[in-house]
């Protein structure tokens, strides 16, 4: 039998309502024996006392309920966003506040590349914050006219390219394709919107986005990004899980030095439901404690800021036409029921209120036919759900994972362009969810926004936008509730709450190790609480050990 370690900490926030605060936690074989005072724990037998956290605060390992393994693959490229952002090596990338700054940054990167023909790929560019002319191929030709240059927008749906890419992709003035933006002279100006132009431009320079996500080095970066944020379990929502990706996931998570539990959701639209069910049976049998297979994700509609979410009346505030379905609304119930009847939990992306309502109709139909009081269908994003939706979700046992980071990054645009004041102020309505007893989590959708649950919690607590507006004070939640949402709340949506999400006997010894008490930091200071690292299954992972790239 292996030994017992008792960790002493300045303070332990347990999320266990019977004993919310402790000073010690005893761990054996990666499992918590108990939390409390030292004398409460000594009865388990001889132990080593670990005093390394004597000046630290422990809380349950935080769980990112909606992120993507792409958070790992994006960091092999240059980050050129409007906000400074820390990479998975812990080094902060600077904020770039104009097109000129982006170009200058990429020129420096180019100068360090040597003679190779390799492409320069950058990501995170968000012109929504700029006034004045949009980026063009001429801007990126200043970076290089001999190698391909690609700048991917923060939405990941638009890219800017230089002339080298246009010519390799055979895009010229005569190319008559939606989404190839043209300048006053009729020539393509280097901005490519929409899937065909984007995929073929990336294909022309040999970049396969899906392959990159599943690479081992990407999965390591994903874990380090999580570790730096104090996250011990993260979802990959979603992944078609081809063989090679699955093999890589197994290999990395099988390494005792890999600091993350991953919950990949199978992309339910990647094949017909009957095939998907067979694949899920095969996958779920391969689950391990650090690779949890068994979740399915479906996508109902698009995004609000991209005007592709499906809205009910009165539609978009600026009059944009209604958005897109990614699954035929008439087929949602059938697809849900195939997975549900086979015993698999399904999470469904719904952004617009019409999508939320349509999916709730489908869930009700499925649960009426095949009741399961613990199905825990979860609506992901669920940004426009209102009072009546949450009431209905409570009756159906449906969970919500709300996109709190949106309030900060795009709250002003929602207020002014997409939703208008009233609907913007009730977006991501955590307080309404809580009032109705709907189990909820909050998320980052990383890499869309930074993977950092303390920041996400700050967003839900303060509801402040970039401009400083408080967007819907009535939907703010307490610091305690926000911390619960990023631990037990997320664990519940993943059906992992019996083994993760709180520090109490029998659960896995996953902790977030903080330099300060987040409760003492309060609403304002929550996002700035320093993260020392994590403990995963009893093993410490200090951020300081992460190698710089």
């Amino acid at each position, binding site marked *: 039998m292996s030994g017992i370690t008792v960790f002493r900490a300045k303070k332990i926030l347990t999320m266990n309502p019977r004993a919310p605060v402790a000073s010690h936690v005893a761990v054996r074989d990666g499992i918590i024996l108990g939390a409390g005072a030292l004398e409460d724990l000594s009865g388990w037998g001889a132990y080593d006392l670990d005093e390394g956290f004597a000046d630290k605060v422990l809380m349950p390992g935080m769980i990112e309920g909606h992120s993507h393994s792409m958070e790992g693959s994006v960091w092999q490229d240059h980050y050129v966003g409007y906000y400074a952002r820390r990479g998975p090596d812990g080094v902060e990338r600077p904020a770039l506040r104009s097109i000129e700054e982006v170009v200058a940054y990429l020129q420096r990167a180019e100068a360090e590349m040597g003679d190779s023909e390799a492409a320069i790929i950058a990501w995170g560019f968000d012109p929504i914050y700029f006034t004045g002319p949009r980026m063009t191929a001429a801007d990126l030709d200043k970076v290089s006219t001999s190698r391909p240059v690609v700048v991917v927008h923060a939405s990941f749906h638009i890219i800017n390219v230089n002339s080298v890419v246009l010519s390799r*992709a*055979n*895009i010229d003035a005569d*190319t*008559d*394709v*939606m*989404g190839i933006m043209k300048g006053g002279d009729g020539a393509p100006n280097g901005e490519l919107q*929409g*899937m*065909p*132009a984007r*995929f*073929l431009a990336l*294909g022309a320079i040999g970049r396969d986005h*899906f392959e990159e996500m599943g690479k081992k080095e990407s999965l390591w970066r994903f874990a380090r990004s999580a570790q730096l944020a104090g996250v011990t379990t993260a979802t990959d929502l979603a992944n*078609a899980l*081809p063989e090679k990706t699955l093999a890589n996931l197994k290999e990395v998570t099988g390494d005792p030095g890999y600091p993350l539990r991953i919950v990949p959701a199978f992309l339910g639209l*990647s*094949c*017909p439901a*009957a095939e998907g069910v067979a694949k899920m049976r095969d996958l779920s049998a391969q689950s391990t404690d650090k690779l949890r297979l068994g979740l399915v994700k479906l996508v109902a509609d698009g995004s609000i800021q991209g005007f592709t979410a*499906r809205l*009910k*009346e009165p539609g978009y505030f600026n009059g944009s*036409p*209604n958005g*897109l*379905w*990614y*699954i*035929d*609304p*008439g*087929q949602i119930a059938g697809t849900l029921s195939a997975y549900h009847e086979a015993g698999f939990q399904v999470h469904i992306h719904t952004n617009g209120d*019409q999508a939320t309502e*349509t999916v709730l109709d489908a869930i009700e139909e499925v649960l009426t036919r095949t009741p399961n009081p613990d199905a825990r269908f979860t609506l992901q994003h669920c940004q426009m759900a209102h009072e009546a939706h949450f009431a209905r979700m409570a009756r159906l046992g449906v969970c919500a994972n709300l996109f709190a980071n949106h309030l900060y990054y795009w709250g002003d645009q929602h207020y002014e362009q997409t939703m208008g004041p009233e609907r913007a102020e009730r977006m991501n309505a955590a307080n309404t969810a809580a009032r109705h007893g709907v189990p909820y989590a909050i998320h980052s959708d990383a890499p869309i926004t930074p993977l950092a649950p303390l920041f996400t919690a700050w967003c839900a607590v303060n509801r402040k936008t970039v401009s400083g507006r408080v967007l819907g004070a009535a939907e703010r939640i307490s610091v305690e509730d926000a911390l619960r949402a990023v631990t037990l709340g997320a664990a519940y949506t993943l059906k992992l709450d019996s083994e993760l999400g709180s520090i109490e006997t029998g659960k896995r010894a996953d902790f977030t190790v903080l330099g300060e008490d987040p409760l003492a930091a309060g609403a304002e200071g929550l996002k700035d609480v320093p993260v020392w690292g994590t403990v995963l299954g009893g093993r410490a992972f200090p951020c300081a050990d992460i190698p710089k790239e």
Partner: protein
Amino acid sequence: MSQEPIPLSVIGGFLGAGKTTLLNRLLQGTSGVRYAVIVNDFGDLAIDGDLAAEHGGDTLTFANGCLCCTLGDSLLTTLNDLTRRDAPPDHIVVEASGVADPRQIADMAVLHPGLRRDLSIVLVDAETILEQARDERLKETVERQAAAADLLVLNKCDLVARDRRAKVRDWAARQAPEAPLIETEHARLPLELLFARDEVKPAGPGRDTAKGHDHGALFRSRSVPMVRPLDLAALRAGLTGLPPSVLRAKGFVSLAGKPENLHLVQLVGRRLRIHAWDAGGRAPPRRELVFVGTPDMPSGEWLERALYPPVVGTGLDNSGE
């Protein structure tokens, strides 16, 4: 590219519009054209033991040389795989999912170096479309699909009374005013016209006359001789200005200023490509354009006049590519 681009057609339309019926006809056809059909799901295809020669995971190979595959990791991956085969198919047909916008798939063919965009055919269930068009959940989806059509097919017309059919026609014409509209049942369409193989007919005596050809009640084809060199600008204007009843045109012409060089003309819907054609040792093809359209398509003489306008200036200044 050493190899000619493969034509790619898109079959769009909402669930139940008849896409699968049409694809079954293609796969079971005996035209000799080796189709590769990309579907979302094998589920509804009529695949029995006799027809399917080989079943290898994502791909079914038929005894008549046709292929059927499901969408793999992505459409682009599947298209790359098909175009890079040792024996690539003659024609690729992609079934758009019930909520997909057919334009996105057609655009892939425009940009892909191994492909040529062919017709986007959108099927409409004449029996249910008016209800779908009123459903606030489906309205924009069916409208976008119809608007993406080069050819709009009102299917299941046998199930719909005459006055209702007129209402369906009105709706369709509002969504796709530029697209020819045809009515059919059981997805019956002249496949050899809509999903042709690219082939070059050698020049031969005695056929250089404008003539028509019957393809059941639905379509006409007309071969129009193009013996005299044409002015490029006038040709472009003439072809893109043809009435919606003309669905496609294809053939070879010679242009004013360089009559010795043949040019290949391909009109699909309202999209036009004209480029210099290298015979590459093959017998020179006939200079003629073959037009395909609905029965109200203009006569061969009318088409000929539309492309050889009365000479006002010389127009030769515009004859470059």
